């Protein structure tokens, strides 16, 4: 099982997505060469939206985890698991870019 410290710092990959806020959710439209792929739109729920907004290219995942823990009454293990699950899925969909 991976830990938060195994991951680098990430930023939202704005080059390949148009982000649209919808209430508490976020809709991401993939864009390649100025073509908007409406049939491959990604819908992020409130939790995923909050996580993505915190991935600003500066905070480590540990810092993001601490931020979430300061906002909600949840177990650290649960937040860590949620973050790792989100990161893995987001990487698969090219939503994140790694900051070296």
């Amino acid at each position, binding site marked *: 099982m991976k830990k938060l410290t195994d991951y680098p710092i990430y930023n939202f990959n704005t080059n390949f997505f*148009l982000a*649209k806020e*919808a*209430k508490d*959710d976020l*809709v991401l*439209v993939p*864009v390649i060469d*100025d*073509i*908007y792929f*409406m*049939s491959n*739109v990604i*819908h992020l729920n409130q939790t995923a939206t909050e996580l993505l907004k915190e991935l600003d290219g500066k905070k480590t995942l540990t810092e993001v985890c601490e931020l979430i823990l300061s906002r909600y009454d949840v177990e650290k293990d649960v937040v860590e698991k949620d973050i790792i699950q989100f990161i893995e899925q987001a990487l698969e969909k090219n939503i994140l870019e790694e900051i070296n």
Partner: protein
Amino acid sequence: MDIFLATQKFSFIKCDQIEFYLDVSKFFTEQIIDYNTHFHCCYNITGIITLPKAVPDFLGHSLDDAQIPYEWKIYKINDNLFIHIDFFENETIKEVLAVLNFSEKTILVELLPRSLTTKIKIDPFFHPLGSLLMVYLSHYSSGFLIHASGVSDNGNGYVFSGVSGKGKSTISQLWKQQGATVLNDDRLWIQKVDNEWKIFNTPMAYYSQEPKMATISKIFLITHSPENYVNNISGTTGALRVMSNCIQHLFDKKITDSHLDTLLEISEQIPIYKLGFKPTFEVVDFVRDI
């Protein structure tokens, strides 16, 4: 000659070598709602089509079984949207270049005929130019085209949306036989007019329909099912499910942004449901009771 589509009016001029005869647009010469946009359209014959010196922003082609195969390309340059159509087996027209300028409200169409001496008889919204123009005309008016059948029943407008094979024609027939008016069973133009969401039918090949509109009460995403059932999927999920049935060739950030805004707005104001239905009259009362 004028043609009316949704809230738009189109006036035409043409060169002598072109003769307009109304086929798909036959019944669209009367307005059914006040127009808020007036386009001036000019159709000409040319000996050569000069394409923009740019890479196309979008391209597509006819279905594999099309009688008259074609390819189309879209170029967006400043305020001009260029639509180029290349016909492979059309007996009279070889190529078409249309330039839509939404700021100026103009549509200029150049036709390259197979023979410069032959008179060209066309409907101004001939296929696929009409369909491609309507995709962008609806978007520029903060509306959209969708694969859907539309029904008007005692003041209620119902949209039954689904891609091919999901039952649009089947459910339309059931409503028609129960006395409702079917606007169209395949494609609709949806647009907000005076705070109401309206559905309009549009000129379509193989349809001979008078223009109709209705105010939308509910939107259903349909699928065949052994039993009738309905699930509410309003909100962002509903908006995205509706979007997946829209006819959209988007390449421009502004227009994509606006399209999403429109879909999110309609999903907040009109209930959206997933409807599984079996093809019997029971589904009509089932929907009326929701």
